[in-house]
């Protein structure tokens, strides 16, 4: 008798009923849910011993002394080093995500050779180094044929680089523009020499003219710590902070007072303040006080109001505050850390002289030139700027055959970036020593990957802004780099050797140890998170009246508005695109999808006939930038503010093509009397599209 439909149904029903009395369904459900709790494609977290190693995290310009946390030897997080007197346990937003940057998709994974427009092929290190030597050999001994651009302000690598060039008979060693460069020039104009420092810790009133000291200017974390020390939570503040600049930026947001000064009026502001102080009875023993007084007198309340768009009372109040202060300090600098020219600096610094604050506690100091590890290296203050160099390459005045680029991104981070990138096209052989595939590396003929800071030895001498000589050094955290890279300095030293030039060292580590010795510091102590501090030197400064006399009066241009580039450390720097761990920090009022936003106050927007959300084109020189308007009352009159660091054309999926590069519309002009290139206070024309 066959099993008919009914019988079959019964069988099935029985089966189902039976199953209910077994673990199948229940455990199946349970295991399924457990499965959903540990999906195979969800990354597992590492296990192992958690340790912390001291490191010098030179991801931000000043470098943070940090502790890198590792699990099973693998870096995963960064915390402050509380023992280090410079960062006092603080970490900047970039270094906070340093461990993740080791695995940035933008990292150069191995040496690469250009094989066509935007095409590269990975090559072996021996071949790469051989290629380097081979290309340099014929240029050896011809001045100007080999050039080098360094984007590292503080490392001793610069000594190796400049000494190597000198040894190869070239003087073509250039640095990327920065405050350190212009400030040192400014000091010269004031009859002194050395790198200026600012003792924020000791001051009871800090006036920052332009300088975004609490976010992107100088040794940020040290500045922030000094600021914080004067503001114990829940108690009275022990110092006042005033910010005079084009944008209500991070620094201004926590200052007691913000004065919206257009970037074109910085000098005028300083001198008008000088005038107000002098009228209030300030005198200086400086030799050129007479001329200075006469000069300042030209900057009357009216001139001030016209130049800055602020009320004259504001200036009076400020002068009164300063007068009342025991230890006032003035810090002058470009609001975005470069291009300000020396006069803006001199005008600001002269106030310190006028107030007799030079060399005082809580005043402005001068740092002596640090002893060198390599005698033949170029002195820091004699460095030449890369912007002028590439400008002359563009015009054919300079014709280098080879360009070595160390930790710098000139193709992106120089004014009129577009032209600069073009200019590089005139150079036959370009080598980029870079950790990441940046815009410059993308143009290079040979890319030699550099290790991430946690994979290498490095040091930092006198980061700009520190009030006394300061030296930091660090050693690798991990045994070997995660990519196939070599320390650029080691590579250079080897190449030099092959070119028959001995600099007396084989590795960067040795160079740094020698440097430490020369300085009188203990390398091991430094490598373990320590610091070396010296004493600032004395020496008086003039008021720089002679130089200031040449300062052009701020001219009001009705068609164009002033451009105030804004630099936020968290969003990266010229040589570092926004790190993956910092993407969240960028506001949607700054970058929206692929559009950068241009900030301006309602009055300016009205004047320009634009409104929030409008798409506009900003143009200056040969460059233009597109952006969306965002009305922001924190921007000075007749000024538009835009963030630097976006509009990348290389890097990774997180940054490439996001926003636009504001460097493209910074226009360079020659500064009267100083021969410097300046681009702070560039103006742009804004057109709705």
């Amino acid at each position: 008798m066959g099993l008919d439909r009914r019988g079959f149904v019964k069988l099935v029903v029985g089966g189902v009923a039976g199953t209910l009395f077994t673990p199948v369904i229940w455990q199946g459900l349970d295991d399924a849910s457990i499965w959903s709790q540990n999906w195979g494609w969800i990354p597992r977290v590492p296990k192992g011993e958690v340790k912390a190693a001291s490191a010098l995290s030179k991801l931000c310009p000043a470098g943070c002394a940090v502790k890198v946390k590792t699990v099973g030897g693998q870096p995963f997080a960064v915390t402050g080093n509380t023992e280090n007197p410079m960062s006092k346990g603080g970490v900047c937003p970039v270094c906070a995500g340093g461990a993740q940057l080791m695995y940035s998709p933008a990292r150069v994974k191995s040496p690469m050779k250009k094989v066509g427009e935007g095409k590269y092929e990975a090559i072996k290190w021996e071949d790469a180094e051989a290629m380097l030597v081979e290309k340099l050999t014929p240029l050896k001994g011809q001045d100007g044929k080999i050039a080098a651009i360094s984007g590292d302000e503080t490392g001793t690598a610069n000594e190796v680089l400049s000494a190597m060039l000198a040894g190869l008979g070239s003087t073509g060693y250039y640095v990327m523009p920065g405050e350190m460069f212009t400030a040192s020039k400014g000091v010269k104009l004031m009859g002194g020499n050395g790198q200026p420092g600012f003792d924020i810790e000791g001051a009871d009133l800090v006036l920052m003219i332009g300088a975004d000291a609490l976010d992107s200017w100088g040794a940020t974390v040290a500045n922030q710590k000094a600021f914080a020390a004067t503001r114990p939570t829940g108690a009275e503040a022990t110092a006042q902070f005033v910010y005079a600049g084009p944008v209500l930026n991070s620094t201004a947001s926590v200052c007691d007072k913000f004065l919206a000064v257009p970037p074109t009026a910085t000098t005028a502001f300083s001198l008008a303040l000088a005038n107000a102080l002098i009228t209030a009875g300030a005198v200086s023993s400086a030799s050129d006080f007479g001329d200075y007084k006469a000069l300042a007198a030209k900057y009357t309340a009216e001139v001030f109001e016209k130049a800055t768009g602020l009320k004259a009372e504001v200036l009076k109040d400020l002068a009164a505050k300063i007068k009342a202060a025991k230890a006032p300090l003035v810090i002058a600098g470009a609001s975005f850390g470069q291009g300000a020219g020396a006069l803006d600096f001199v005008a600001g610094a002269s106030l310190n002289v006028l107030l007799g604050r030079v060399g005082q506690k809580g005043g402005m100091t001068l740092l002596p030139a640090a002893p060198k590890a390599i005698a033949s290296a170029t002195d820091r203050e004699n460095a030449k700027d890369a912007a002028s160099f590439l400008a002359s390459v563009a015009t054919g005045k300079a014709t280098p055959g080879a360009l070595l680029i160390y930790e710098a991104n000139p193709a992106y981070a120089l004014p009129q970036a577009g032209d600069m990138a073009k200019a590089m096209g005139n150079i036959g052989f370009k080598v980029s020593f870079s950790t990441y595939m940046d815009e410059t590396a993308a143009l290079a003929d040979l890319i030699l990957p550099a290790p991430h800071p946690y994979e290498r030895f490095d040091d930092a001498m006198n980061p700009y802004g520190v009030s006394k000589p300061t030296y930091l050094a660090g050693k690798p955290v991990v045994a070997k780099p995660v990519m196939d890279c070599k320390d650029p300095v080691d590579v250079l030293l080897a190449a030099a050797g092959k070119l028959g030039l001995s600099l007396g060292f084989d590795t960067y580590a040795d160079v740094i140890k020698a440097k430490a010795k020369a300085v009188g510091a203990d390398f091991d102590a430094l490598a373990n998170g320590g610091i070396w501090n010296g004493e600032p030197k004395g020496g008086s400064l003039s008021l720089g009246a002679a130089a200031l006399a040449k300062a052009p009066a701020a001219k009001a241009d009705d068609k164009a508005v002033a451009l105030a580039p804004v630099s936020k450390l968290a969003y990266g720097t010229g040589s570092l695109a926004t790190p993956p761990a910092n993407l969240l920090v960028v506001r949607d009022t700054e970058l929206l999808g692929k559009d950068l936003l241009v900030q301006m106050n309602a009055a300016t927007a009205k004047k320009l006939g634009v409104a929030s959300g409008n798409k506009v084109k900003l143009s200056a020189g040969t460059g233009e930038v597109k952006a969306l308007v965002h009305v922001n009352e924190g921007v000075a009159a007749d000024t538009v503010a835009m963030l630097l660091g976006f509009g990348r054309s290389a890097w990774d999926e997180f940054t490439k093509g996001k926003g636009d590069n504001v460097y493209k519309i910074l226009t360079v002009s020659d500064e009267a009397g100083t021969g410097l290139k300046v681009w702070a206070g560039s103006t742009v024309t804004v057109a709705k599209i």
Partner: protein
Amino acid sequence: MDRALFPDGVERCSFGKFALWMAFITAFFLFGLYAMIVIFAKGIVVTGLDNYFGFGLWITFDLAVIALGAGAFFTGFLKYILKIDQLKNIINLTVIVGFICYSGAMLVLTMDIGQPIRAWFGYWHPNVHSMLTEVIFCITCYCLVLVIEYVPLILEQKQLNKIPFLHHLAHNMHVNMALFAGIGAFLSTFHQGSLGGMYGVLIGRPYAFRDGFFIWPWTFFLFVLSAVGCGPIFTVLVCTFMEKLTGRKLVDYKTKALMGKIAGTMLTVYIFFKILDTWAWANNYLPSVGMTFDQMFYGVIYGKWLMFTEIILCGLVPAIMLITPSIRNNPTLLYTAGILDCIGITLNRYLFTVQAIAIPVLPFDNWQTYAPNWAEWATSGMIVAYGFLVMSLSYRYLPVFPQERAMNK
């Protein structure tokens, strides 16, 4: 060809025509099914929901259909417990509508949660303090009750009913229907309320938060009332829609008017308390948390007009229309009132779901706006299509309308 399956003595359209109609509906259903698969595969990132709008069209849809499906339990309650016998003419329809609404809502919920595989956690790890737990339990239990109420109807299908066992089963189930109706009424009252409670307890959402009685915020009771205030009339609308579609008379107008009267009465009670509640909320509660009535609204998309439409145009007006015999007895006006009523309740659910979370409670935060995207529309549409399919089949093959035969002589 399928004539043998029709209920006794009634006419149905040709099979070809029917097939065509089913195909048409199925198209929508399949599109929704596609969307559902995409959602299960990629997660709800494919929807228009976001950090500010964790709830959106789906939850609104659920709450709305559950409210509209309330005709089932309430009519059942009146018919079996209060013995209003006339309702037998429409009770079957209310059951089917209820079944469709609830089963549909449950399907939407499984899509709505981020981890459908863990859906059963709601029963295994229940949090007794959560109104949502109450909802989960009541809805599933009540859905079972509706199945039990629906089954005998299926068993009464001409052919099935020939099988003695099924015949008797159906009969016995009918006998005990009062019991199920009772359970149903109890369960529904609770989850209808809990749905309101869900919002009423949101202490962080001034638009929705309400004080209340014992553990139940006032919204608990308001939701129950509003549900019974629209459920019955929704059934009437469905019925009338079917009559227009099939060109046959299915339920006599007297019954419809009665349903209208029932809904109207409940709606009137509801709207009275709703107005009181809103007034107290605006004048006592909001000031107590430092907010103003105006702060609750924004532009056109979340403007005051919504609240006025909900309470006055689609609340007060239909209530008056439904309790006024002269208006109620005019078909056109009855249906108009019914439509307004249903819109009002749906709008109420939308406002509590979406507007409540659109308001920036943090003073330095901004309003955000929400628009459902294709995936949400398609899946919601799938449920509607599913409803049409079930209803079409039931109408064609099951004896849903006891009066049909007589009325179409």
